[in-house]
């Protein structure tokens, strides 16, 4: 029985996308993870991957057409999915507002379409809104719905910087590491150890994730940012994380991010680099429940073994969801990240 392959939601800030190119033809067999289509969104062109092994029955739209999130792109056969339901009241409202329900993503149980979904679609602004509007919508929702709490902590980054300097000094450029990789490893390990910061907050509450899919905020040239995820980051070594990050940033710059990496993040890391300000208070990217921020390392007076010294000090920050954790757990989480960063040889 053929079923619809629909426009996936690649994050809370995506309304829809325009088909750039089909990568498959009718009759083709596709595998889970295979790129089916290229779709242009406010974040650039995204490679849309199949969620399953299936056969392409029919392509429903042509390049150049815009499809809202949840709207059908193609018919696939191979796996059974439940039929979509729509309430009679929602169907009547859709007729009145001239909303095409085939294009709607239902928010009810099993994707059932309710009146609120139709209402939202009927009042949707221009589908090709810029990335600034998209970020505003996602983070506005975050600020409205998520009761954030914020914690900050300073860590002496000198041991990490020294360790990295020594590592890089004896290796050719392509094998060197960037400081952010140490932060990524510290966050990924801490997130795997401390429950409550890694997962999604959905309709029925918090769902912890066993794997850590670490979102990393990457600035886009000309403004805006995206936070694609390094999948299953916790067991990865520093060298693997560096390689994954390098490839991911290249895909961002080329405008070829993968749908899986854009929607998979279970926690996000944001770093201002080496030349930014010393501290930031980030906003959680829904449906995640935590984001860890790293300010730029700054030379500061610091007490080492009872003596005053000049050290490179980094301010860590955590924004977390009070529906899931409290400041006490948050404090333990942030202290664990700081502890790992202060012993870089063990990372």
């Amino acid at each position, binding site marked *: 029985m053929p079923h619809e392959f629909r426009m996936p939601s690649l994050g809370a800030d995506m309304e829809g996308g325009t088909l750039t190119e089909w990568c498959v033809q009718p009759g083709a067999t596709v595998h889970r993870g295979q790129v089916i289509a290229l779709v242009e969104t406010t974040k650039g062109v995204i490679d849309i991957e199949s969620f399953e092994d299936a056969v392409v029955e029919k392509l429903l739209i042509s390049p150049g057409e815009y499809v809202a999130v949840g709207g059908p792109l193609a018919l696939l056969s191979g796996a059974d999915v439940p039929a979509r339901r729509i309430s009679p009241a929602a169907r009547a409202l859709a007729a009145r507002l001239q909303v095409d329900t085939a294009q709607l993503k239902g928010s009810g149980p099993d994707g059932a379409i309710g009146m609120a979904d139709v209402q939202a679609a009927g009042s949707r602004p221009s589908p090709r809104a810029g990335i600034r509007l998209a970020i505003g919508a996602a983070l506005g929702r975050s600020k409205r719905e998520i009761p954030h709490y914020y914690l900050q902590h300073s860590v002496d980054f000198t041991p990490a910087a020294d360790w990295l*300097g020594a590592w*890089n*000094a004896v290796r*050719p*450029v*392509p094998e*060197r590491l*960037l*400081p*952010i990789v140490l932060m990524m490893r510290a966050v990924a390990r801490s997130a795997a150890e401390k429950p409550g910061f890694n997962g999604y907050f959905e309709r029925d509450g918090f769902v912890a994730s066993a794997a850590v899919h670490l979102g990393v905020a*990457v*600035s*886009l*040239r*000309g403004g805006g940012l995206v936070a694609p995820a390094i999948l299953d980051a916790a067991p990865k070594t520093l060298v693997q994380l560096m390689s994954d*990050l*390098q490839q991911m*940033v*290249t895909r961002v*710059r*080329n*405008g070829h991010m993968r749908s899986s990496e854009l929607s998979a993040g279970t926690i996000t890391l944001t770093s201002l*680099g*080496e*030349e930014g300000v010393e501290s930031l208070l980030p906003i959680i990217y829904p449906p995640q429940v935590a984001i860890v921020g790293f300010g730029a390392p700054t030379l500061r007076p610091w007490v080492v073994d009872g003596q005053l010294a000049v050290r490179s000090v980094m301010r860590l920050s955590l924004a977390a969801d009070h529906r899931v954790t409290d400041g006490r757990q948050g404090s333990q989480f942030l202290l664990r990240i700081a502890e790992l960063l202060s012993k870089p040889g063990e990372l």
Partner: protein
Amino acid sequence: MNDEKLTQRLLALLTEVAPDIDPATVRLDRDFRDQFDFDSMDLFNFATSIVQTFGVDVAEKDYRRLLSIEKAAEYLRNKPAAS
């Protein structure tokens, strides 16, 4: 390699590691960070391609000497190739 060729080569490397930069808009004397929000990964990738293209080694502390086309050209002119 003459200066013009070196400049063109560096511009090609820059737009290879950062394809979202339009080569026509690059100001040769301006710092990449001010011009295109170059981040540490962009600089790392640019340094990697310079090393691979010109067969030189670049110490980590010298990355910042590659932060404009003119600076990178100057750095390479003063550096004997390793191969």
